[in-house]
């Protein structure tokens, strides 16, 4: 099993949910497909979706909901 760490493409605030009262996009252990939204990053008054470029098993998140991120910070691990 190759483990790959996916990095944040932009800095901002990371969200795991589409809105505070909704469930998270993905849980650790979920199988995700390329094109799935894994989270949101808020910057400059807009929310940019973090879209999976490849599929696999989402092994773990490196950051929590509403944590600050810098570009290049690890977001989650993917088992391909």
């Amino acid at each position, binding site marked *: 099993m190759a483990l790959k760490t996916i*990095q944040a*493409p*932009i*800095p*901002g*605030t990371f969200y795991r949910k589409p809105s505070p009262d909704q469930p998270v996009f993905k849980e650790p252990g979920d199988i995700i497909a390329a094109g799935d939204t894994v989270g949101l990053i*808020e*910057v*400059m*008054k807009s929310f*940019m979706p973090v879209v999976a470029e490849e599929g696999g098993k989402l092994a773990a998140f490196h950051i929590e909901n509403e944590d*600050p991120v*810098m*570009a*290049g910070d690890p977001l989650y691990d993917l088992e391909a």
Partner: protein
Amino acid sequence: MALEILKPGLSTTVQDLGRPGYYHLGIPLSGAMDREALIAANALVANDDGDAALEAVFMGPEIRFTADAVVAVTGAELPPKVDGVEQPTWQAFLIKAGQVLSFGFLKAGARAYIAVAGGIDVPMVLGSRSTYPLGALGGHEGRALKAGDVLPLGPARRKPKPGALVPPGLRRPGGRDVELRMLPGLYWHRITEAAGRHFFDDVWKVAPEADRIGYRFRGGRPLDFLPREQPFGAGSDPSNIVDSCYPYGSVQVPGGTEPIVLHRDAVSGGGYFMIGTVVSADLDLIGQLQPHQQARFRAVEMAEALAARRERAAALAKLKAAV
């Protein structure tokens, strides 16, 4: 000779040195958030200082070139790649017809300037090619770039030299923990002495909302105001004033909680008190701050503000002489 935008990045706009002369009508200067980096990028490709280039914030675009061109990327450390091969920043490089310019992850700073020999030849609007998205003015159709846009290039002014570089000691890629010099302003008397001390002692962090209009900071202690009966025409909050002009770099603190430094796309007036104005020499530094990075404010007097301006002008002259 053109640039085809394959992917626009997060918010990539055409910018030059701006559109002075219309602020009294509510049309701000616009132009590069980091003017020195724009001038450096233009110098590297043998353009004039005020030729139009692309400003990419946090994330680079993907661009296909329809003809050979000389390109330079300055400002933020956003590694350029030609057909996937990494190129240096702060150095002119050749890109061939059909090749694609893309970018790696941002390593430092916030805004990269992508200058191409000849400059981006969008129409002049009120004397500038800068994009003012809020007013749908200038640049390419008055907005940030989208996939499928095609940008014309002007004819090269002089023969550019691939390999030309800015010596490392003269580069300002933008950093963390910056100090912003501020001239305390007309409304300083509205806050308590303790609040004034806290403002300069506290460490402030860039809020994710920060953009070309204003850079919002949070994390410091709220300001306490001296009591007064609000004058006619001012709102009821103690941070409200009778409407006034907002200078570029002015620091308004709505509700006394989160200072906002107005930047190149500033609104020209309104009803928030201003604690002071960040000196013009430090506005470029703000343009290179990422969300969550730290900054502190330091009080200066006019003499130091003017000295800082002369110092930056001298540094820029040195940079241009070195290229």
